[in-house]
């Protein structure tokens, strides 16, 4: 659905994205992650046909976004980052206008607008003037606009920004439901969302792709895949060397707490030394006050991939 080859965008004096290549196939939900300023919005603006690129090639549903822009754009439902809307129009008026603009057949407009109002729970607000809506409501109007012509491809730039947790859940359900027939490229900072929703994750940093894989694989291959936390109230002197020697443990760090000493054991993805720790603690009569295992989150991976340099 999306094919990006060696995409580069340079502004005067700096390179926003550099030699980006990726593909998104039909039916995928791809999370597009990266810190602020990594080039996410620039990439999405290029994919949506808003901005030209410096070099490379982008094709959407088989159409070149630059050469056959209008044909390509017909397939895209795009929600820009700041959700721009005409603040002086009414919600249903705006959606009818957008539907007509995007080529929905006249008789079908009412039906489509009704559908997206329903989907984005905007029924009660359909006669409201957009400028008077709350941020979350505006966000949903933008989403309704992106959906109104029933596009094959959705490009959503931070669609859940400004929504409350309930609305975020709604939007997430909405996107998951849409995904059966559609392709979705979504950028967000809410990483648990991505883990739940996306079939694949692309992480970019400083204009380059750092990782492109399923969330599971990213977690599995992450170098600090798991952490086991052990807290002892009176640690014997050899505890560090014993813990380090356990199977699957990569390294151990130590931290003083109010009630004793806490050890963080970084492990392989599959390893779980908790039982070993428990067994040794019994044998050696350690005063174990805490033993817990934390699975790595996408956040750890994200921080690791985009941290520093």
């Amino acid at each position, binding site marked *: 659905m999306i094919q990006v080859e060696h995409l580069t965008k340079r502004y005067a004096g700096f390179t926003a994205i550099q030699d980006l290549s990726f593909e998104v196939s039909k039916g995928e939900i791809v999370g597009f992650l990266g810190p602020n300023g990594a080039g996410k919005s620039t990439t999405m603006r290029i994919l949506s046909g808003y901005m030209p690129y410096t070099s490379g090639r982008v094709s959407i549903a088989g159409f070149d976004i630059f050469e056959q822009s209008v044909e390509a754009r017909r397939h895209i439902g795009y929600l820009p980052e700041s959700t721009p809307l005409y603040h002086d129009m009414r919600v249903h008026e705006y959606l009818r206008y957008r539907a007509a*603009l995007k080529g929905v057949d006249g008789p079908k407009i009412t039906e489509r607008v009704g559908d997206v109002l329903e989907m984005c729970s905007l029924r009660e607000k359909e006669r409201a003037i957009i400028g008077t809506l709350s941020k979350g409501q505006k966000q949903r109007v933008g989403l309704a606009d992106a959906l109104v012509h029933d596009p094959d491809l959705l490009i959503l730039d931070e669609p859940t920004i400004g929504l409350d947790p309930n609305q975020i859940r709604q939007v997430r359900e909405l996107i998951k439901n849409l995904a059966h027939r559609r392709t979705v490229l979504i950028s967000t900072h809410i990483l648990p969302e991505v883990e739940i929703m996306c079939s694949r994750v692309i992480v970019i940093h400083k204009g380059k792709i750092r990782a492109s894989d399923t969330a599971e694989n990213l977690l599995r291959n992450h170098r600090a895949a798991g952490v086991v936390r052990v807290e002892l109230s009176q640690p014997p002197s050899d505890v560090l060397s014993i813990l380090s020697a356990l199977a699957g443990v990569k390294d151990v760090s130590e931290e003083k707490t109010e009630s004793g000493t806490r050890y963080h054991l970084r492990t392989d993805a599959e390893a779980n030394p908790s039982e070993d720790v428990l067994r040794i603690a019994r044998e050696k009569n350690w005063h174990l006050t805490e033993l817990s295992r934390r699975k790595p989150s996408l956040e750890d991976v994200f921080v690791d991939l985009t941290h520093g340099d």
Partner: protein
Amino acid sequence: MRVFLTLLGREVKSFFYSPIAYVVIFFFLIASGFNFYSGVSFLNQSPSEVTVVEAAFNTVLFWFPFVLIFPLITMRTYADEFRMGTIETLTTAPVQDWQVVLSKFLGSLLFYVLLWAPSYLYFTAFTQITGKQAALAAGAFGGSYLLLFLIGSFYISLGCLASALTSEQINAAVMTFVAIFGSFVTGLLGFIFNSPSQAVRDLISYFSAVEHMSDFSRGLIDSRPIVWYVSMTILVLFINLQVFQYRKWKA
């Protein structure tokens, strides 16, 4: 075509979403009504050869509000889209750039025509009440309105171009005013200075809106001003399209 009409529909409607359209209409009606009134009373006090159409369209009272309405009509066409960011949703919809440019121009032009529509009533009312003709011939009457339309097209295209250059309405308004006032004053130079030579005078009269109006309102429908305004409008719209597409130029 359907996409174009959708765009045009929004452009026209967008005038009436905000109070500014009503304010413009209100003041324009006052100004043009007062101008008509003073034209009629001028003829009452000092009977002369001119018709009421000539008297109404050839005064300072006519020209002054006339040049002021264009910045107000056109200033938000593009500037507002840039400022609100809606340019992004507009241009990522499957629309052609020329459709956007033409719809913004025609939308403003339609509003301008609407602004002038009530003035037709002045002259019909005048004819009804006094039993006298408002103009010497249909040509003088139609000619005046034709010229209003042509000058309006040119000035509106200038206004749209100015608006496409900025994201601040006020900048657009000032640029438009300067451009229109500049071209208007150039046409007055022949009156202001005792013309240096006949050749310069002739040159200036080619693009003097004031002289064109004095001809057309007497029924002298000359093809040269028509060609001038139509071709200038097309030229400015073409530049407007290039400016609008500037964002798509590959760096």
